């Protein structure tokens, strides 16, 4: 494709491609803006820009990821997503076939999530000024009454749950990007979590914190929560689910799964008394089948995340800026 004024035919081509695959009544109105009814209650809104290499990876691609990312941001506030918008920045020369693959994947993710893409925009930049394609999505959702989920709501005594095994997405991306071959292909866990969240909230409306541990992984997300809430967190290493192949890959690569990104997992902090019920609800949902209680919120003036390791040891799980650097002298 070409950029600038001369690409009118191309622009129409792209427009057509989007409309064909993302088709829905609101998008079909043909406005530059989407017009739709809102249900009663508070609205939730979020936006997320997606830049990823490689664009296609085992278990997903930038298209599905850009849908899941924003839906999960809404879900982590407790919101039920209503609709999405998408903005594309394409690099001149990006293969149309790849673009179509991405749009089809996006449409499928949106359809499966039950959330339409109601408006969009595309710009093409000069060759060398982009990295194939960047996608920004925004979403709007509605917050059920009585829900008050916040990263600063963790309190000592509460339980820390995770919806499944950690580290899959980051390892999947890395192996694809660096062409690493493991015995079995590791798939990204990219998924939309609002369905799971809706069932969790229905069972326990008083959930304190929800957070999707994306970039920086479980460790970073928990440190952010500990800091925002002014508490400490104690994790039990043996209880943190890590898939054996992900674990083996991390061991070989020298990565700590606690710091590896996820795109289809959530951390839930709730009253200890609610944790069994929540785990039951989570495990009954396909996206929470391996949900586990991994630790507890504690009183700690230094707001540290600490992990009890096997045989009585304990490790500081600190907040890293940038990538992990060896600290051993």
């Amino acid at each position: 494709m070409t950029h600038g004024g001369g690409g009118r035919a191309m622009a129409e081509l792209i427009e057509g491609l989007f409309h064909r695959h993302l088709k829905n009544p609101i998008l079909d109105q043909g406005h530059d803006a989407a017009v739709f009814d809102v249900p009663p209650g508070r609205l939730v809104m979020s936006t997320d820009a997606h830049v990823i290499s490689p664009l296609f990876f085992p278990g997903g691609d930038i298209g599905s990821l850009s849908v899941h990312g924003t839906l999960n941001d809404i879900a982590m506030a407790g919101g039920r997503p209503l609709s999405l918008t998408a903005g594309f920045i394409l690099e001149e020369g990006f293969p149309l076939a790849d673009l179509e693959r991405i749009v089809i994947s996006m449409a499928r993710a949106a359809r499966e999530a039950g959330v339409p893409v109601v408006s969009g925009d595309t710009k093409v930049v000069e060759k060398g000024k982009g990295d194939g394609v960047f996608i920004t999505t925004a979403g709007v959702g509605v917050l059920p009454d009585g829900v008050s989920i916040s990263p600063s709501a963790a309190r000592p005594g509460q339980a820390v749950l995770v919806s499944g095994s950690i580290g899959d997405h980051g390892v999947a991306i890395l192996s694809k990007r660096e062409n690493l071959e493991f015995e079995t292909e590791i798939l990204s866990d990219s998924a939309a979590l609002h369905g799971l969240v809706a069932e969790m909230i229905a069972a326990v409306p008083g959930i304190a914190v929800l957070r999707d541990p994306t970039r920086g992984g479980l460790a970073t997300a928990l440190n952010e929560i500990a800091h925002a809430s002014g508490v400490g967190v104690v994790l039990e290493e043996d209880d943190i689910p890590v898939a054996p192949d992900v674990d083996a890959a991390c061991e070989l690569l020298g990565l700590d799964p606690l710091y590896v990104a996820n795109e289809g997992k959530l951390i839930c902090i709730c009253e200890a008394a609610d944790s069994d019920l929540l785990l039951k609800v989570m495990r009954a949902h396909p996206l929470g089948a391996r949900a586990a209680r991994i630790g507890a919120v504690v009183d700690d003036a230094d707001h540290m995340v600490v992990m009890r390791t096997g045989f009585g040891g304990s490790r500081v799980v600190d907040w890293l800026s940038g990538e992990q650097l060896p600290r051993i002298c």
Partner: protein
Amino acid sequence: MQGVGFRPFVWRLARELEITGHVLNDGAGVRIEAFGPVEALEKFLVRLTAEPPPLARVDRIDIADTDPAPVPVPDSFQILGSGEGAVATGVVPDAATCPACLADIGNPSDRRHGYAFTNCTHCGPRLSILRHIPYDRASTSMSGFPMCPSCRVEYEDPDDRRFHAQPVACPDCGPRLWFEDADGREAQGDPLAVAVQRLRAGGILAVKGLGGFQIAVDAGNETAVRTLRHRKRRPDKPLALMARDLDQILGYCSVSEREADMLASAAAPILLLQKAGPALAESIAPGQDRLGVMLANTPLHHLLLAELERPIVMTSGNLSDNPQETENAAARQHLAGLVDGFLMHDRDIVNRLDDSVLRLDRSGVSMLRRARGYAPASVRLAPDFDQAPRVLAMGGELKSTFCLINGRDAVLSQHIGDLENAQTFADYKKTLRLYLDLYRFRPDVIAVDGHPQYLSTVYGEQLAAEFGIDLLRVQHHHAHLAACLAGQGWPLTGEGSAYGIILDGLGWGEDGKIWGGEILKGGFAGFQRLGHFQPVPLPGGAVAVREPWRNLAAHLRTAFGPDYRERLAGLPLAAALEEKNMAMLDRMMERSLNSPLSSSAGRLFDAVAAALGISFGRQSFEGQAAMALESLARPFLKEERGYAVDFKSSPLCLSFVALWQQLIADLHAGAADGRIAARFHLGLIGGLADGLSRSGGRPGDAVVFSGGVFQNAIVKDGLTGRLKDMGFRVLNQENFPANDGGLALGQGVIAAARYVAGGD
């Protein structure tokens, strides 16, 4: 110093010489006013420095005339109470039981016969029981034991050895000893007799020692030692021994006169001694040619060992990487599955103090771990440190210590340990706050390592914000160099510089890369990097430190390129590598995937060890591979010649292509592992000596050695000898560890110099 019996010593001396006046502690030290005939005063002065009590140290005497003399001149000599601000004189280290107290506990007619908590002004607990200042009984964990009338008489009599001995105690008023089984039930009968009987039967016991819980087992019982290793999950790391007396040690190790003195000193460290004579249990120090041994150093240890025929293993009472236990309740909870019983008492341990570890090399003393018996004794810095700011230096990440620079006194904390362990980190913060309190120390500036992710760096940033003061970041190996100079009385200001050969594991470099094998030149205010080892990838980052095979692959690939494995064809080593996921490792290095470049010296040792199949897949403790390599090499040093090391210049880079070529040729030729290990050590020594000359070093120049690799005696002794032969002035640092345990001292003096220079 407080609590070392210096004032009563002055008092007795004055009375003997018929001198009148008084003695008191003030903020700066001891102040004496003395009146008498000139000859008596002169004698008094000589004897003050010549024969101070065992724990006292006279740094300096300032003399001033009292003009005019007071009227009337005092007619007696008195000890006055401490003045306010007796702070700078600080806290003394804990000291091993003195001969007089040992005689007391062995004397059936003494009221302290068999009493496990006997002490006096010349010995006993100090830092380990201190909660806050001023140092008196109420400030220690003896506060809950009111003195009985007999003890009080001794405490108040300047002529008594126990005058003002704060922890003074006897069976009537002091701490109590008991034995309890793993289930918490107290055993009937004499607790020491029960403990001895259990040890003889191969039992594993927790003993509440001076600075923490220890674990004891019969050192001659291989089955019991193996059980201990299994339960403690400590497969390989050498275990320390404790012996009743020197004779008992001589049965198993060779001990020189100087080593005997070190063992018997008030600090009573663990000393690494050459094995000699019949072996004790084989799994005490597998693969090592040395044993770590200390003498009984508290009355409790003396009483326990008196009845045992052999030395006992005396290792730290902890699980995994946790710090050793100090509290009864926690010890019961955490050690119950590990030991068969507890020898307990009710005197609280306030400050955890591990046993210190030293070694006497041909080139001098090597302090390997500095804690009990040494901390918190201060080191005297050069006179111009009078103008230094108060610096709090935070240390490193492993083997952590911190340091307070307080004018000419540098106070280095005891070894605290590896901060990644959450309990150790909590202990580090607690101990740091205690020291700030003990020394009433309010820093002007905080010094941290350049590594942004060291927990000590992050905590230092927090403290700087809390105190509203500046933070200075100090390059890791510059701090190593400066620590050596500080211990030599190097001036704060001035242009002087020394060469530093730093052989280290990994440290944050100024270029964002990881450094470790460095030739530096500098002083406190700055440094130049004149040379370094060839940077080599660390495939997997920190994992590469645990897995020597990764470093072998990385070194060979750096030396020979991607086809490096072809050179190993036919060697057992090739087969061992094939077992690993080499495709992945090569890919990681090719793509720089979590494979940061490092000029580490420690990883070179790991690589060479792996080439000989030592700790090939994994080492279970830091330095394991290098220590085994050193032990292998020692018998062959005299008859071997070193491998060649090559150089690339500007900037100087020691590269190891030739070394690996020769080493692989030796492997193909079937040379003995010990010979290869010796050739490697000697080659490195030769290469470094050559590298120093190529860096501009000339006869007469000062050189210091630092970094964890200098715990290797072959390298330290060999390089010292070689450089002295070349005319260099080698300054050996005996008082602080060459590893990161000494880092904080270097950070502190560098920050002081930079602060004074106003450069930041």
